[in-house]
């Protein structure tokens, strides 16, 4: 539970006016007022809070955030974006353009043909809304101030349920494109449920080239023996990305996940994985890159709630110029569980006199039958490696560039062995080139 030492003025009324009344009326009966009351109780994050110490929290205090206006050329732009993405990717493409969701009717039909129930809320024009059971609701998330904000201020959302024993033929690809420079903020939600013995590939891409604030909340539930491969990439020239991701895994479910963040003014990723069922496994790769004055903050938590569970993390970060990278990796093993294996490594490269890295791998173990290891390294490029390359004719600059790339490619090399995750990196190359 998050506690905040200092509570800046939270302009409750203004937030309520700007977001809740207009945006959230009628969304599954959620009461934005209740969520905003909790936001007020928490207070907005500040650097005084342990979990936000290294993050640029000043922008939260802006009082002119407002919900985005639907662009006049929304349909046309989304079509164009779709054409661009579809030329490169095979998958179920779902676009959130300035917070507003869009999907080809043919894509919706194809999803339905695979037995996938999906729903967009609240203003979508497609999807099987009439098929959604009345019991399906957006869960109210009050773990911390950010989930409260998204619960209360949710703009649009996408709900998707993959039935049991279904292997999706194509990955589901979410593209969040934000480009309106008017101080807009979006609070999208995505809720994915993967049924027993099912398999799903999911990819999220966020690009913000304006000063928009994006606060997405992604909930994933993996039923017994379900498998998930998940990739997320955040990039852009400006903007603020503060995301919350929650994964709950049940018996023998497996997840392999990768995230990659660079660009934007500030990126914050809170990831929480609960291994609730026996023999559940999760694997994480991460690559972060902060340059100029960017801030990249990853707050990862893995809870081994059930016995015989496994977690594996390898997180790299590169800070250049005046960039700051932060990693807090908590692995929690509560009392009473047995046969736990957890591994966490965080490697950081600091290139630049004013670049900063903060790392805290942290294991909280209350059980006995546990094999855990963690480690973190922080440093500049290895001078011996630099010299080695120079001795083969590489200039110092070339050697530095090569070693920097190698640091990134160390993760990529692992990922290329996997078809989907390799696709993720090829997507990265394509999008970088765009």
């Amino acid at each position: 539970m998050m506690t905040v030492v200092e509570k800046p003025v939270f302009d409750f009324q203004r937030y309520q006016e700007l977001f809740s009344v207009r945006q959230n009326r009628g969304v599954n009966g959620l009461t934005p007022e209740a969520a905003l009351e909790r936001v007020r109780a928490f207070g907005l994050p500040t650097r005084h809070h342990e979990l936000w110490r290294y993050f640029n929290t000043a922008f939260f205090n802006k009082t002119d955030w407002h919900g985005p206006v639907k662009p006049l050329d929304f349909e046309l732009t989304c079509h164009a974006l779709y054409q661009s993405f579809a030329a490169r990717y095979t998958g179920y493409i779902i676009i959130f353009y300035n917070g507003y969701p869009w999907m080809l009717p043919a894509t919706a039909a194809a999803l339905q043909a695979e037995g996938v129930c999906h729903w967009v809320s609240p203003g979508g024009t497609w999807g099987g809304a009439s098929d959604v059971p009345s019991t399906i609701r957006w869960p109210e998330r009050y773990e911390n101030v950010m989930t409260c904000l998204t619960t209360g201020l949710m703009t649009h959302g996408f709900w998707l349920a993959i039935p049991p024993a279904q292997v999706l033929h194509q990955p589901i690809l979410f593209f969040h494109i934000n480009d309106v420079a008017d101080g807009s903020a979006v609070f999208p939600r995505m809720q994915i449920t993967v049924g027993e013995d099912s398999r799903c590939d999911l990819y999220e891409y966020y690009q913000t080239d304006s000063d928009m604030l994006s606060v997405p909340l992604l909930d994933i539930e993996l039923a017994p023996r379900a498998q998930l491969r998940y990739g997320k990439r955040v990039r852009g020239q400006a903007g603020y990305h503060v995301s919350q991701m929650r994964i709950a895994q049940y018996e023998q479910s497996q997840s392999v996940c990768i995230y990659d963040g660079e660009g934007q003014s500030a990126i914050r990723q809170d990831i929480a994985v609960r291994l609730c069922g026996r023999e559940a496994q999760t694997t994480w790769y991460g690559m972060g890159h902060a340059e100029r004055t960017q801030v990249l903050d990853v707050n990862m938590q893995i809870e081994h709630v059930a016995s015989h569970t496994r977690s594996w993390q390898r997180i790299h970060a590169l800070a250049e110029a005046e960039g700051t990278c932060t990693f807090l990796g908590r692995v929690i093993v509560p009392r009473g569980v047995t046969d736990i294996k957890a591994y966490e490594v965080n490697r950081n490269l600091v290139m630049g006199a004013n670049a900063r890295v903060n790392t805290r791998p942290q294991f909280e173990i209350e059980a006995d039958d546990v094999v855990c290891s963690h480690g973190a390294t922080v440093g500049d490029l290895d001078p011996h490696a630099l010299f080695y390359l120079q001795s083969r004719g590489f200039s110092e600059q070339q050697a530095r560039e090569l070693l920097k790339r190698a640091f990134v490619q160390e993760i990529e090399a692992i990922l290329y062995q996997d078809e989907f995750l390799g696709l993720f990196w090829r997507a990265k190359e394509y999008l970088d080139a765009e």
Partner: protein
Amino acid sequence: MWTIDNLSVEVNGVLVLKGVNLTIAPGEIHAIMGPNGSGKSTLSHVLAGHPAYHVVGGHVDWAGEDFLALSPEARAEKGFFLAFQYPIEIPGVNNLYFLKTAFNHLRAVRGEQPLDAFDFLAFVRQKLALIGMDEKFLKRSLNEGFSGGEKKRNEILQMLVLEPQLAVLDEIDSGLDVDALQSIATGVNALRAANRSILMVTHYQRLLQHIEPDFVHILVNGRIVKSGTKALAEEVESHGYAALQGAS
């Protein structure tokens, strides 16, 4: 002609080389032998331009040029190559990519056209065959996870590919089994040429049974105390370095 004249080198404030003199003519193979701590690896590293080694006296001349004034990469461009005693592992740098980039860079320096990927691969395969190295090592990251012997082979592979004018082999035989030593010796011998010089640094005479040197020098306490032919190495093998300590 390559001339080391009265070279003195300090490492962390300690004088390690105390006036080394050595001349190597094109086509010659020299061996430097010496006990632990005598300054052999210091000599190798200072010749390669390692920034941690400070030259406090003397100079090195190569074809009329002040060799010590050059950066490490400029020395490589001039045709200098150091086979490291402890090659560095660099995860994420593909071995083949590394070789090709270094190779084509040196070609560009010499005003030659770069080889494309296909031609380069064919070229490297010849070199691999020469030292009995599996092609799979090309696909791996540079030296990452290689055994000691594989790293040494990879150093020799680089040397064969880059075709230096002067190669310094720093204890290239340490930690090798008989077969690996034979393979490496085959690679080094293949590089012998009238315009190429090789300086081998070693503890043991066994390397010299595979690669016959023209001259052998004994380095003790930062100075070359004795020079001779291959017979000198046999003398060391029989009597040890202690017998030569007095000469220093």
